[in-house]
Every structure is written in structure tokens, then in C-alpha cells.
């Protein structure tokens, strides 16, 4: 058994609800981009004056009494939400009818315990809708499409007993079936104007003349076309929210962990019911100074583990504490399919994803955000250019015989380059003072001029020398550089 609520001329009703002054006036809603706007909807008073759907702005402006308003999608969305909420109060299974704006179909099978009969349910539904400020037709029938057609065609409440759908449909005009323009023209030519007249035709001859759509139209007119209901379900992601208000302001984060743990547990239970894990947590702290403080915790892999998520939130909040006492908490989660990895007995050692997340968070807290990660070489002319990216080791592969590479002398970089004193002999260095030590230059090669970014204000330039230094028994091979802009010598690094 289905109950269908249909608010006729839904767009104008939505506009009149948001702008009550329009109720007593003839008005038209225009849609489209200027100057090609056309009439999208008009209320009854405007239509009586002659306004028609599809008219241009210029044509409507010729009606002096008609008020013109642009179509407001937000108003329609808001109105639709109101109708949705009302429909949800009468049945847990509802479906939105796409063909007509604002129209909902309710599966009322088994609602007899709450409502005496279908007629009472339909009347209460209509009263509730009218109390919300809308005018709607409500039709009840055991066939989905029959109920939709009746709601569109009959004003008020119409209840059709089971088995009498054909009789109820018989008097309805054909346009309620949602005909194509060609089909409408064909039926008009044949002299068929009501559903009853269409149902009286033989099905096979109808199919022979207009093809397979004829079978559907014939069944619709008789009230026997079946429908697989696809009830709307509340958005799972939107439901992954937990919030709590505290009795008194809290300044110590540790005391919030108990509350956060309970909230995370509740979110995880919901996520696990759908075989999903938590991929992102948005922690919203409502502060004592009436502001909101947000932090986002995004584990590298979706997790189903409360202690890990809790630890990540704790470390993040400790690194970025709020500036005022906390009076409320909101926890928003985003779910994702849980991470699955194929383990193997012979795979190389790799950090466990959950523990690695906490480890990295702790290291970030200890050293700083940009001091933890994997180095990545950048395509830059500047020597030793790199950037640090988050450490996400790829899935370990079965160990193969690692091929030995030729050993290369490593370079240890001075970050930042340290100022040194250099004594020159001719043009080349022959003595270097570095870290309180006096080095004699045994060998020297250079200068190698390197520069870059000369087209911008970030330009850099230096003359580099590779030198073998000796002080007492200590020997080191280093790279020193002369910066012509600052006229200073720097220690760039040491070969090791």
C-alpha cells in the first residue's frame, strides 16, 4: 500500500513560504541566465491573468500586476527538506518521485497499528503538511503508479481500495501518465482522452501500433504496472557525527580523552556495521570564548582501532592546543574501506601501519612537522635541492638479491652553511679557519661557479672550491664556497 503526497506547483509554494508577502499577489518565477530568462512557474492568480510557462521576461513584464521573482533553488531545497521530514514521520520507507518536484511516495504497509486505516493516515498526513504551510494532494492506492497519478490529478485526499485501481484511473486524463509529445498527439488523433479509454484497448494491438511503450502505458492506465520501491536511506557519512556538551569548561586535554574515547568507539561501531573504517576525523572544539577550533586527523590508512585513533588525536591536540577552555566537543568522521594487506612469511620487515602512524605523530611532536619524512629529490638546478614528503613506505616485496653498487663518496652538508675565514694565496685558498681550528690547505680544486634564479630576486651565486685540509693529524676533504654578494666564505660540507 502506498501513500503519495504531491504539492501542486511546488516551486511557487516554496517561494510563497519563504516570502509570505507573495501569497496574495500574482507572481511568476523566472529561471535561466539573463537576458534569456523564461517563466519556470507561476501561481494560480498569475496564470488566470494569462501568464504561461516558458514566457520570456519581456512578455511577463507586459502584465503590470504580476510580480516577477527569480527562481530560488535554496527555497525549494528547504521546502523539500520540510516535506521530507513530515514524510519520515509517517513511514520509515519513503521514495522521492523524480517526475514531480516535492512529491514523495510512502510505503504504508503495516502502519495499521499507528493509524486506524489508510484514510486516517492520508488525512493526518495532509493536515501535517498544511500545518507546515504547504498545500498537497494525498492519494492512497495499492499500486505505486496509480497512487502517483491520483495524487497529481485529484485534489485533497483520495483513497483507492485494493483491486479498484482500474476504476479509479478510468476517469483521469491521459497526461497523468507522463506521455511523450508524439504519444499524446497519436492518442489525440485516435480520440483517446482518458486512461479508461486507453485501458479498454487491446494490449497487443496497442503494442503493434506504438511499440513496447504501449505495453507500459496500457498497464499504467489499468493500474497494474509494477514498481520496485527504492526507499531513501539516510546518508551514512552524514550520520558519522558525535557531539557532547560539557557541564563546565575544561582546560586540560587529558581529561577530555575519556570522552573522546567513548565518542570514537561509537563512531567505529557504526563504521564497522558497514564493514568500513575511519579514514578521517574532524575534531571540533567549542571554546569558552564562543569560537570553534577545528583539527583534522587523517591517518595514512583507514583504521578500525580506537586506541590508535585516540592517540593520534591526543598527539595532534597536544601539538596544536586550543587557546581557550573547552565547553563542547564534536567529532565528525569520514569512512573508507578498511586497509587490507597480503602478508607473507618471506616478505622483508616493514612497520605496522597503525603503529607507524602513532610513531610518526610522536616524532613530529618531538622534532617538528617538517623534520620527519622521506627525502625526495626535486628537479632543481641548485645543488642538494630536496623536499621532505610524508613517510609512506611502499608495500614490501619479496627480497631479491640486492645488486651491489659501486661505492660513492658521500657528502655531508652544513645546514645552514657556516661562515669560515679563508686566507688566499694568489686567487686560491691556502689556509682555512673553521670551528676554532686552523687548517692548512694541502690540495685545492676550483673554483666551480654555480648560480641560478638570476632572473628573480631569489638569485644565488657562489664560487665553490674542493679542498683537502689538514690540521695536526686531522685531515678532512671539504667544499668551501665564496659568495660574491656577501663577500663571505662558507663551509658547504664535508666529503665522508
Amino acid at each position: 500500500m502506498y501513500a503519495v503526497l504531491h504539492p501542486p506547483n511546488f516551486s511557487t509554494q516554496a517561494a510563497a513560504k519563504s516570502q509570505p508577502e507573495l501569497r496574495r499577489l500574482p507572481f511568476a518565477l523566472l529561471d535561466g541566465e539573463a537576458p534569456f530568462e523564461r517563466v519556470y512557474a507561476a501561481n494560480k492568480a498569475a496564470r488566470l491573468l494569462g501568464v504561461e510557462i516558458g514566457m520570456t521576461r519581456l512578455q511577463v513584464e507586459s502584465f503590470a500586476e504580476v510580480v516577477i521573482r527569480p527562481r530560488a533553488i535554496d527555497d525549494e531545497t528547504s521546502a523539500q527538506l520540510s516535506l521530507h521530514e513530515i514524510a519520515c514521520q509517517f513511514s520509515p520507507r519513503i521514495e522521492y518521485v523524480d517526475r514531480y518536484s516535492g512529491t514523495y511516495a510512502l510505503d504504508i504497509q503495516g502502519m495499521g497499528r499507528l493509524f486506524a486505516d489508510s484514510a486516517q493516515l492520508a488525512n493526518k498526513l495532509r493536515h501535517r503538511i498544511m500545518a507546515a504551510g504547504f498545500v498537497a494532494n494525498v492519494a492512497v492506492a495499492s499500486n505505486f503508479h496509480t497512487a502517483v497519478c491520483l495524487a497529481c490529478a485529484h485534489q485533497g485526499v483520495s483513497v483507492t481500495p485494493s483491486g479498484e485501481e482500474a476504476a479509479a484511473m478510468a476517469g483521469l486524463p491521459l497526461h497523468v501518465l507522463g506521455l511523450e509529445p508524439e504519444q499524446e498527439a497519436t492518442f489525440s488523433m485516435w480520440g483517446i482522452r482518458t486512461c479508461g479509454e486507453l485501458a479498454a484497448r487491446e494490449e497487443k494491438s496497442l503494442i503493434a501500433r506504438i511499440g513496447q511503450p504501449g505495453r507500459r502505458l496500457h498497464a499504467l492506465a489499468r493500474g497494474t504496472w509494477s514498481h520496485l520501491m527504492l526507499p531513501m536511506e539516510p546518508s551514512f557519512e552524514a550520520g558519522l557525527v558525535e557531539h557532547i556538551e560539557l557541564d563546565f569548561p575544561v582546560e586540560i586535554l587529558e581529561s577530555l580523552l575519556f570522552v573522546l574515547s567513548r565518542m570514537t568507539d561509537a563512531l567505529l561501531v557504526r563504521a564497522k556495521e558497514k564493514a568500513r573504517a575511519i579514514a578521517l576525523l574532524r575534531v571540533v572544539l567549542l571554546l569558552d570564548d564562543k569560537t570553534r577550533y577545528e583539527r583534522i586527523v587523517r591517518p595514512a590508512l583507514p583504521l578500525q582501532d580506537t586506541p590508535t585513533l585516540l592517540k593520534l588525536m591526543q598527539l595532534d591536540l597536544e601539538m596544536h592546543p586550543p587557546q581557550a577552555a573547552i565547553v563542547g566537543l564534536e567529532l565528525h568522521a569520514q569512512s573508507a574501506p578498511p586497509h587490507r594487506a597480503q602478508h607473507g612469511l618471506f616478505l622483508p620487515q616493514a612497520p605496522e601501519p597503525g603503529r607507524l602512524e602513532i610513531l610518526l605523530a610522536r616524532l613530529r611532536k618531538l622534532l617538528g612537522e617538517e623534520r620527519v619524512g622521506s627525502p625526495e629529490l626535486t628537479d632543481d638546478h641548485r645543488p642538494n635541492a630536496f623536499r621532505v614528503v610524508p613517510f609512506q613506505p611502499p608495500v614490501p616485496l619479496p627480497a631479491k638479491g640486492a645488486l651491489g653498487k659501486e661505492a660513492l663518496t658521500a657528502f655531508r652538508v652544513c645546514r645552514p652553511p657556516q661562515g669560515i675565514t679563508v686566507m688566499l694565496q694568489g686567487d686560491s685558498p691556502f689556509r682555512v679557519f673553521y670551528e676554532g681550528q686552523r687548517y692548512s690547505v694541502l690540495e685545492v680544486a676550483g673554483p666551480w661557479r654555480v648560480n641560478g634564479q638570476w632572473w628573480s630576486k631569489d638569485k644565488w651565486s657562489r664560487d665553490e672550491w674542493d679542498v683537502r685540509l689538514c690540521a695536526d693529524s686531522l685531515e678532512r676533504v671539504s667544499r668551501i664556497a665564496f659568495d660574491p654578494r656577501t663577500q663571505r666564505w662558507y663551509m658547504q660540507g664535508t666529503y665522508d
Partner: protein
Amino acid sequence: MGSAAILRVEVERGLADRVPAALTPKIRQAPELFATGLADVDAMLNGGIPRGCITELSGNPSSGRTCFALSAIGSITRSGAACAWIDVSDALSPDSAAAAGIQLNRLLWLRMTSKGNANHSTKEKSLSNLDQSIKAADLLLQAGGFAAIVLDMSDVQAQHASRIPLSHWYRFRLAAELARTALIVLTQSSCTSSCASLVLRCESPITETFSRNGETALFSHRQYVLTRERNRNEGPSVPFKKPSSRAEWDANTAWCGVR
């Protein structure tokens, strides 16, 4: 059976409820070894550096410590395992690491930073970095999952490194054993005391003069020398031939072949 053996059996039987095989030496299995990628060094070390142990490598600047560590880490990351580099002086060159064959996405690089007052002296910064590096090493070893961790204290002065309490090294040794991680410590002079299973010393390298008429490429055929001072994982059996305790390897610079 001698009287000592009988006595030992009696004592063990008496303590069997509390301490099984109290007086019988624990059978130690030879640890798994990671090849360093340097053939001569691997031959000297009977296969490479031990897993689950501390390997200490000391030496002066420019003696090849970083070259050795990069080569070892490169070899391990190429086998598919993850490694970490605790950089006390923030001196690692990613260019050198990539040239040594390290898969950079399998390397966790921790760069120590001197927090606080910018006017702090070099000594204070060094101690602050050292403190951070010890904490970071502790966290990494406790978390496990890394095949090798390099604690790079190459630029830390010996007197500062020797201040690290011995208890830290004992804890690291136990944690490395449990996590099956090879902890490689690079220092200027030995500071891990008896906790290191393998102690190596980098001697002064032999450098070919590079400014000789411009004919010799810069730093070509730089020969590093490594001396083994201790290897606790050597087998108990008496070898037929005395194992070599010195290895040499040649290292070039990346630009040597581009002449």
C-alpha cells in the same frame, strides 16, 4: 663425568623449578646479517652487519663513515625493507643517498632541530640535538618494523657523545634485539662501550692527488680503510686461518665517470 660436571648437574636439578638450565650456557644462534654492498667489507665481516645488534663505526671526518652507512642502507632498502636515519647534525645529503642506491621512499629521515633560543651556543645546540636523537632512537626501536636504523653522530664531538649514559646503550641493545633491527651508530670515537656487537674503526683514507696537471679526476679512487675492533658474533670454533681485521674499498665521486 668429572666432579665439576656432577656438581653442575646437581645444582641445575635443584634449581630446575625456578631457573631451567641455570648453569648451562645459552646457545646463541648466529644473527642474520645484512650485506653492506661493499664486497671486501662483507668478506671481512663474514657476510655483513648483524641484525638485532648495535654496530658502531667511529672515525675522523672524511674517513668514509657516511659512505659505509649509505652503502649498507642502500643495500637494505633495495631488498624491500624500511630503514631510518637519525640525523643529529642535519647533514645527510639526499643526493648522496640517492647516488648510493637508497630507495628514498623506504627511508625515514629524522632531522634534529635546535629548539629554543637562537643565541644558544654550538655546544648547547649539540646537546639538545643529542637529547632529541636519543629519544627518537628510543621511539623507533620500541615501535619496531625498521630493518636498520642509523644514528648519525658523526659531527658530534667525542666529549659530548661520551656523555650519553651507558644505560641508554643497554636499552637500545635489548630493544634492537627484540625488534630485530640493526642499529648503526656513527661516531667520532667509540662511545657504546660493551653494548656494540660489532665495532669498526675508519682509518685515514688514501687519497690520490687530484690537482696533478688536471689529469686525475677529482676524488677518483679514494681508498677508505676499515678496521674491525670487535665482532662478538664470530663463531666459537678456532678458525684455520686468522680472519682479516682490515678491509679497504675504493669510492669514487658521482662525476668521476663523466670525463
